[in-house]
């Protein structure tokens, strides 16, 4: 072998290409998903069926009432498709990782992630992609096209451009919450309830924020808009697309952008703190 210690010191230190690493993660995950094709198909069918049922329910409800918090049927369907976009992206790219992260902390097997010369948060957040979750993304796409066509007022170019940006902001906010929750496994031990907690909490964001009114509703709405910005996730992009632009749209939109950035920053702080307290497993 023609290697010696001095070469090691002298060889150039190449920074990993985060994009290339992510593409590898995506590719490996796809290969894996395809290895278990039966499962993959079942997952796709399950999530689509789930969605279909929810859709049927809403259609049933709109058979009785004209609007929900000021959103007519097709406006609400735009809202629903936005929910689908955000949730499917989160479930495809981040959910499996957050679950595994929690488990790795609990079993003390996070060690290997901490050994790699790459940002740990990047590594544990993106190393698995659940491709089957994207089936809902396409369902959302179809639903969006269907409902946009039936709106009284179609969205303009600005809205079409801003929409994907705000969907991404929504994903960022959900991701931050997820990773922050998963990080708390370091201090709280097994986090099963925290996961159910996640689903219940995001339940708040699946309806237009206008439904939260009254003595309890209003403060709830304020809290989940400005303190834990869950309501911003789907509401902002959906409103951009479904409702005509007015002066009121902009403050919230700007806030949404700020909230996304702040959430990601806050979750990184929590993550780093958790990594410092990590205990590993006794062997």
């Amino acid at each position: 072998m023609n290697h010696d210690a001095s070469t090691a010191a002298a060889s150039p230190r190449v920074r990993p290409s985060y994009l290339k690493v992510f593409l590898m993660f995506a590719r490996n995950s796809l290969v894996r998903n395809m290895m278990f094709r039966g499962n993959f198909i079942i997952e796709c069918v399950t999530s689509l069926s789930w969605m279909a049922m929810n859709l049927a329910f809403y259609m049933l409800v709109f058979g009785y009432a004209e609007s929900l918090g000021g959103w007519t049927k097709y406006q609400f369907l735009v809202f629903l498709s936005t929910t689908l976009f955000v949730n499917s992206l989160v479930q495809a790219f981040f959910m499996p990782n957050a679950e595994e992260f929690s488990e790795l902390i609990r079993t003390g097997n996070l060690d290997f992630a901490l050994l790699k010369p790459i940002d740990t948060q990047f590594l544990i957040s993106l190393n698995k992609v659940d491709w089957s979750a994207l089936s809902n993304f396409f369902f959302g796409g179809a639903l969006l096209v269907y409902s946009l066509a039936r709106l009284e007022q179609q969205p303009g170019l600005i809205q079409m451009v801003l929409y994907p940006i705000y969907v991404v902001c929504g994903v960022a906010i959900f991701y931050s919450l997820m990773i922050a929750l998963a990080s708390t496994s370091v201090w709280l031990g097994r986090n099963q309830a925290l996961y159910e907690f996640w689903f219940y909490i995001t339940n708040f964001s699946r309806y237009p924020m206008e439904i939260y009114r009254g003595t309890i509703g209003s403060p709830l709405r304020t809290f989940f808009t400005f303190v834990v910005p869950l309501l911003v996730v789907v509401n902002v992009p959906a409103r951009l697309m479904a409702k005509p632009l007015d002066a009121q749209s902009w403050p919230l939109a700007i806030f949404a952008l700020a909230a996304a950035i702040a959430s990601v920053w806050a979750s990184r702080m929590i993550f780093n703190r958790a990594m410092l307290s990590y205990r590993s497993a006794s062997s």
Partner: protein
Amino acid sequence: MAIIEIEGLAKSYRVYQKQEGLLASVRGLFHRTYREVSAVRGIDLKVDAGEFVAFLGPNGAGKTTTLKLLSGVISPSGGTARVMGFVPWKRENAYRRRFALVMGQKNQLWWDLPAQESFRLHQQIYGIEPAQFDRRRDELVDLLQVRPLLGQPVRELSLGERMKMELIAALLHSPEVLFLDEPTIGLDVVAQHSIQSFLRHYQQIQKVTVLLTSHYMKDVAALCRRVVIIAHGQIMYDGSLSGIVDKFSGHKIITLVFPGDAVPGGLSRFGDVLEEQGPKVKLKVDRNGIAEALAVILAQHTVDDVSVEDPPLEEVIAEVFSLANEQAEAVVARP
């Protein structure tokens, strides 16, 4: 020049006390009782570049914890350590690129995919040049003779084969320092042997610094000259393997072969009779009394053969471990 410097390194944990019984469990909801467990209690160590050092110690001695501290996986409760000038628990990327940790029976490769996919991922993460990567990989694969297994999903490999893949993955980026935590645990003898000879060969050629933990003495004997005995979170010995016997064992073993089939009686006054099966007898005799005992025996009896040996290394080490445990229990028992 020391590549690893450790001073007063200590690590202790809080462990939640589980109470027995229903009522106590309910009480546990509101008020947890903790216990402080010291895994590492002040370790001082210097290792030079290119050394192969073994940490030997019983379970719970703190060997793995020490390696984890040196890899930066956990941070200490006290003391300092520097590896290649870096403080490990700062987890700097520049440091992480230059060392590797391999843990026995723990798997970092993707389970369902062939090892070669994991290797490629490594290449991307460590930023290894393609040409250099191909060369390294081929060298390591051929040395460990696993080429036909590269395309098989990792979960289909045997434990020994998986361990070899783990080693390759760890060495692809040419680390200067290698930490091995019980690498041969759970492996069959053939696999153990094969990995041991690989490590010996690799270390000699590459001149990497290796820290290996084990509770198998065979690993240690096969691979290195310098042994550090860790027990109960502290270093009890640091030196050569042969020195252990000299330091810790107060006895030697005299084996006597008598003519005929019978063994004369009364030998027990010289020491403990370990084995007696005519015409052979083994006596455990205090070191200081060897010459005297031999003189008397040879004067009184006719002997066909006599040999004086050190007790088996494993026994000595086992005694050291149990001594450490007793000391530890004494500390705990003290109010």
